[in-house]
């Protein structure tokens, strides 16, 4: 490696990491939090005995999973303004990613709720709980444990998907890389560097997932 390669690496690394810190990571965290709330609501709607309610959730999930995330993002940022709805790039990105995560995680949460043994509902009713209380105090905590591995995967996918936000000019990891690459002309090096940073973030998340699973192990009903 020659001197100029080293210089480029040194000078570009921090701006890319900065992109991760101010863009990628907050974007992923915000979207995942909102998406998760949405997912729990959708999962409960899917489990509702009222046909219309479960139908709405079903259509939502089908739509989100049946269309590309990039298209969803473009509809919100470039499409909605023609209806007079102008949303800034950051909130547009959060909105699109939340809607997307909500659709995917809803099925995970639903499956997790269904995986809790019927006897847990019965014990909750037996001690006098209402359906709502049984759900929040007895069923969801157990479902949460079951859904840690699949939700971790959803989150890791989301972290990588936030690179799409670069296409609506949100300052995040990949947008930073693009700018540096265009400026320096060394596309291979800078994009590999960006890939490396994504990889490091995902490795970190995987190890957090492992710790979390171990800690929550006792929550499983046998």
């Amino acid at each position, binding site marked *: 490696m020659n001197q100029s390669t080293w210089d480029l690496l040194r000078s570009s690394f921090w701006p890319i990491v900065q992109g991760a810190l101010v863009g990628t990571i907050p974007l992923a965290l915000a979207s995942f939090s909102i998406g998760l709330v949405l997912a729990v609501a959708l999962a409960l709607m899917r489990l509702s005995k009222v046909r219309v309610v479960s139908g709405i959730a079903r259509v939502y999930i089908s739509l989100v999973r049946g269309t590309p995330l990039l298209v969803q993002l473009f509809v919100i940022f470039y499409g909605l303004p023609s209806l007079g709805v102008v949303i800034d790039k950051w909130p547009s990105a959060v909105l699109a990613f939340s809607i997307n995560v909500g659709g995917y995680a809803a099925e995970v949460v639903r499956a997790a709720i269904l995986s809790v043994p019927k006897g847990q509902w019965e014990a909750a009713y037996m001690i006098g709980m209402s359906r709502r209380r049984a759900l929040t105090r007895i069923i969801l905590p157990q479902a949460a444990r079951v859904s840690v591995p699949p939700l971790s995967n959803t989150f890791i996918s989301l972290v990588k998907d936030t690179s799409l936000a670069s296409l609506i000019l949100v300052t995040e990891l990949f947008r930073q890389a693009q700018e540096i690459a265009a400026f320096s002309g060394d596309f291979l090096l800078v994009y590999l560097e960006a890939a490396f940073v994504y990889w490091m973030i995902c490795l970190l998340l995987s190890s957090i997932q492992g710790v979390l699973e171990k800690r929550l192990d*006792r929550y499983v009903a*046998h």
Partner: protein
Amino acid sequence: MSPTEASPPLIDVHGLSKSFGSTRVLESIELRVGRGEVLVLIGPSGSGKTTLLRCLNGLEIADGGTVEVAGARAIDFSSTPPPKVLAALRDRSAMVFQHYNLFPHKTVLENIVEGPVIVQKRPRPEVLEEALALLERVGLSEKKDSYPFELSGGQQQRVGIVRALALKPQLLLFDEPTSALDPELIGDVLGLMKELAVEGWTMVIVTHELQFAREVADEVAFVDGGVIVERGTAQQMFSAPTQERTRQFLHRLLFPF
């Protein structure tokens, strides 16, 4: 003969019916259990005895007949009762399950105080004190901070019984409480249940433990095909059953091969 004959019964069931799809599981059950009485339900699997037990606290919703527990207004099951009415019915009883159904994400102590504190809104310090006393009684004081998965089956079931007692119910329901236990662990649980019977708890127990029934039951009812075929004292039922079906069932239980 007993004072319970004079006072109104704790459980009063009329014409209770239940079907699963086209299968009739319970057919016009009439049942009366006095305060302080122990009723043991026996019968082959699929006979409807567990369904009958579960109808008493609304875990199973009957589709006909009435259930009255502890002098509350009789609940009419000709139409599905609203959740509030079912909750009121459940308030009066507590159930011990075959598979314990302890909450796996809560410690032993949290399992016990969940109902009294969160549902019944009783003061936490008072409930904790009672819970610890009950644990002490069943010999599980040192397990109070353990999680259910750390306990043996017999220990879990004793916690299940303590969880039921902590609710201060008027009626205790047992659904095959020892069927999932290893043989050497059954004694502890049955011993505890016997103590409760002696203390005067009203209990309805589904079990296959005939020796236990003989010692503890005031009355034994043989359920088969969704009806109560025969009922009487344990003595009558086991030594001189009048119905052929009862005789056959007891014979199979006593001489399995």
